[in-house]
């Protein structure tokens, strides 16, 4: 009886939590869409121009203006768009003349793949570097890690990309050039998921896998480096905080090996805030990096959204915004979940 009541209360708490999360997500999305929609309408670019071009007659212009629904009040335009979205219709892009969902399904996997490889590189190198710098605070290693981080923060990604291509592709011939895959391998596999590394591996097209890998490694290393700069700095800071705690002193007094104190006890506690740092870095990468995508001719979300925005292609911009919003919300929820798993205190709070 008692346990039933407790179980019921816990269930109600969970339900309330889910309802509150869903409510927050809905409000966030609505706010995001309203702001994006308004920004799109105040940008001093005529969206009709992308549809009819510069030479259209007034009659053609007027017809396109009406077809785009621009003759209606802003609120009505937004309401019509929202209704269609609820029916699963995100509209058609003025630029590519295809449904937005189809466009995003084409460009997003390119960004997802690049971002995932980048965050793996950024995390795999960033966390150990941050830990190392914290342990050797003030020493040479610490200075080196900080300088590496500073360069990652301040060097223009466009320039780094071109220099990387010049050195590793052009001069040293270590990697393949811009693009996702060479034309000679393009037909060796079917892009089912759009994640070429996964597609080639699943289909056993190892020659193509190697080629895709040699294309992605430089832009991913570059973006990974930028994430690394942030992750290593934050890791260092969290670790310094942990290493100054009393439980570390107690562990040392007890004779726990130093490696265990650093890599198990301190890092496990530092990992809790680090989850948010990594999740945010990943979310930033998933928005698409327009400059990296431009230099490396990477047909991803960043290029797609920038091009759409420059042409006031609002269906595409709003569709892309929804995806980015979903990424942020999804990753936030995921990091919340990880928090619960990593930190017993948050688990008990529910």
């Amino acid at each position, binding site marked *: 009886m008692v346990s039933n009541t407790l179980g019921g209360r816990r269930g109600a708490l969970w339900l309330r939590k889910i309802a509150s999360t869903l409510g927050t997500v809905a409000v966030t999305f609505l706010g995001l869409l309203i702001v994006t929609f308004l920004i799109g309408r105040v940008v001093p*670019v005529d969206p009709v121009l*992308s549809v009819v*071009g510069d030479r259209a*007659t007034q009659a053609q212009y007027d017809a396109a203006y009406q077809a785009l629904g621009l003759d209606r009040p802003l609120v009505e335009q937004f309401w019509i768009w929202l209704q269609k979205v609820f029916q699963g219709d995100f509209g058609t892009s003025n630029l590519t003349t295809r449904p937005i969902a189809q466009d995003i399904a084409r460009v997003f996997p390119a960004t997802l793949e690049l971002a995932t490889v980048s965050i793996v590189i950024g995390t795999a190198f960033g966390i150990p570097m941050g830990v190392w710098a914290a342990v050797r605070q003030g020493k040479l290693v610490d200075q080196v890690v900080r300088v590496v981080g500073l360069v990652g923060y301040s060097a223009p990604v466009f320039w780094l990309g071109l220099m990387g291509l010049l050195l590793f592709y052009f001069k040293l011939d*270590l990697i393949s*050039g811009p693009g996702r895959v060479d034309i*000679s391998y393009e037909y060796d596999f079917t892009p089912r998921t759009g994640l070429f590394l996964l597609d080639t591996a699943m289909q056993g097209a190892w020659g193509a896998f190697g080629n895709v890998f*040699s294309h992605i490694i430089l832009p991913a290393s570059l973006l990974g480096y930028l994430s690394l700069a942030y992750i290593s700095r934050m890791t260092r800071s969290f670790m310094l905080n942990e290493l100054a705690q009393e439980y570390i002193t107690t562990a040392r007094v007890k004779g726990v090996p130093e490696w265990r104190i650093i890599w198990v006890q301190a890092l496990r506690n530092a990992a809790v805030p680090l989850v948010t740092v990594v999740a945010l870095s990943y979310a930033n990468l998933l928005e698409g990096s327009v400059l990296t995508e431009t230099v490396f001719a990477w*047909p991803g979300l960043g*290029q797609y959204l920038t091009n759409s925005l420059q042409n006031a292609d609002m269906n595409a911009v709003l569709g892309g915004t929804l995806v980015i919003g979903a990424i942020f919300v999804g990753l936030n929820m995921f990091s919340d979940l990880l928090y619960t798993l990593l930190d017993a205190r948050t688990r008990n709070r529910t």
Partner: protein
Amino acid sequence: MIHSRFLASVALSALMLGATPAISLAETPPDTLIQAWSIDDIISLDPAEIFEFTASEIAGNSYETLIGYDPQNVSDIFGKAAESWTVSEDGMTLSFKMKEGRTFASGNPITAEDAVFSLVRAVKLDKSPAFIIGQLGITPDNADAMIVQTGPMSFDFKMDKPYAPTLVLYCLTATVASVVDKKLAMEHEANGDFGYDWLKTNYAGSGPFMIKDWRPNEAVILERNPNYSGDATPMARVIYRHIPETSTQRLLLEKGDIDIARNLTAEDISALQGNADVKIESGVKGSLYYLGLNQKNEFLSKPEVRQAMKYLVDYDTIAGTIMAGKVKVHQGFLPEGFLGAYNENPFSLDVAKAKELLAAAGVPEGFKVTMDTRNTPEITAMAQAMQQTMAQAGIELELIPGDGKQTLTKYRARNHDIYIGRWGPDFQDPHTNASTFAYNPNNADDATSKPLAWRNAWDIPELSAATDAAMVEPDAAKRAEMYIADQKTVMETGPFVIYAQEIEVMGERKNIEGVIVGPSFNDNSFAHVTK
């Protein structure tokens, strides 16, 4: 080679420690031509809608028009899908006979029914380029009565006035007059759209190549048309890769991963001069670079100020140094190569003369004015050069940078002071430019016709009448004289500082032969390319 690259890449991923350079020479497949081009302006593959440079070139290589001309000598007009034509005595009807035995890529025969369908379809769909046919008096309402099939391989093309024959023929060389496979298009018709929704992303033509695939912002793939009625193309495939960054294009070209780079800057071109594996191919295009001076501005509306502005541009430095081979000096509104083009360039940088003119206009100390400037490196560099030379006469030119669509939006609304622009002709006849630089039948803000003269608020009833008259002049020599007179008037009094004509430059691997760089983008041909 691939294995070694893969290993090298793995090594690179370990922060480039200990990697040994793997020597390899990249090259493109022997039967495939790979080009790098910024192709994000493509919005449709339907010839009734295509108006962008990139899509025009793709249509030129994959569709056939009724009539064509020799890109080296545009006055040499000949039939492509049409065998021959005759002009009626009243000059208001052209009777066409189609070539026998030709087929579309689908295998369907090309007949007069297809030609009539294509022209009527273009007029009725009424997309941007429809006016090219529409200006001959053909409207969506009368199209069925004006373009009429008279036999299996013959049809009549009627007009509302006896337009100059060259005008009519050149209009029919434009992309909008491409012959579309009626049977195939109508198989995909929905809601009476003549197959438009389908053809925007598909193909129904008869040119040397077929459009196999268009992946927006990524690639366009053309494949050899096995049913082409002419000689089979040496290349099995032509691939356009979307590479927006010019430095990346240059790296790919030098490395041999592409065959042709299409958007090289003047800086890239001069850097490539020393590379023995690369050659530069160029051809004069019809596009003109100009400044539009808004007559709503109190200073720019003074005739002497307009004249002074034409002496404050350093034409030679722009053509020779800033654009380094990508333009030539040209000041008339008809590009060199057009019927009636006036190729004299009377203006040069002359600050003293400009100061005299400004004094005569009552503004000896100069004035302040803004210029909406598209934020591309080349337009910005030219604008900055003008800013410097104008400052020498006291004109303070403030540059307002903006994205292309942004500056154009402002220009079309006549909200600019000065606009630095580029204008490409829509077809090969002089009327195309005369009807925009020297034509403004109604200067009111709510006018329905908005040519460049309207955008710059230049009220010219007499010149507009002269342009109308030239449009119907049957004698080509007399017509040419009329256009020369128009150009002189625009040079002397007009609000346009026309300063250069475009030269298209392609960087090619040295083994590439047979590229044709024509005066307009739909003349660029890759049908004879070998490597």
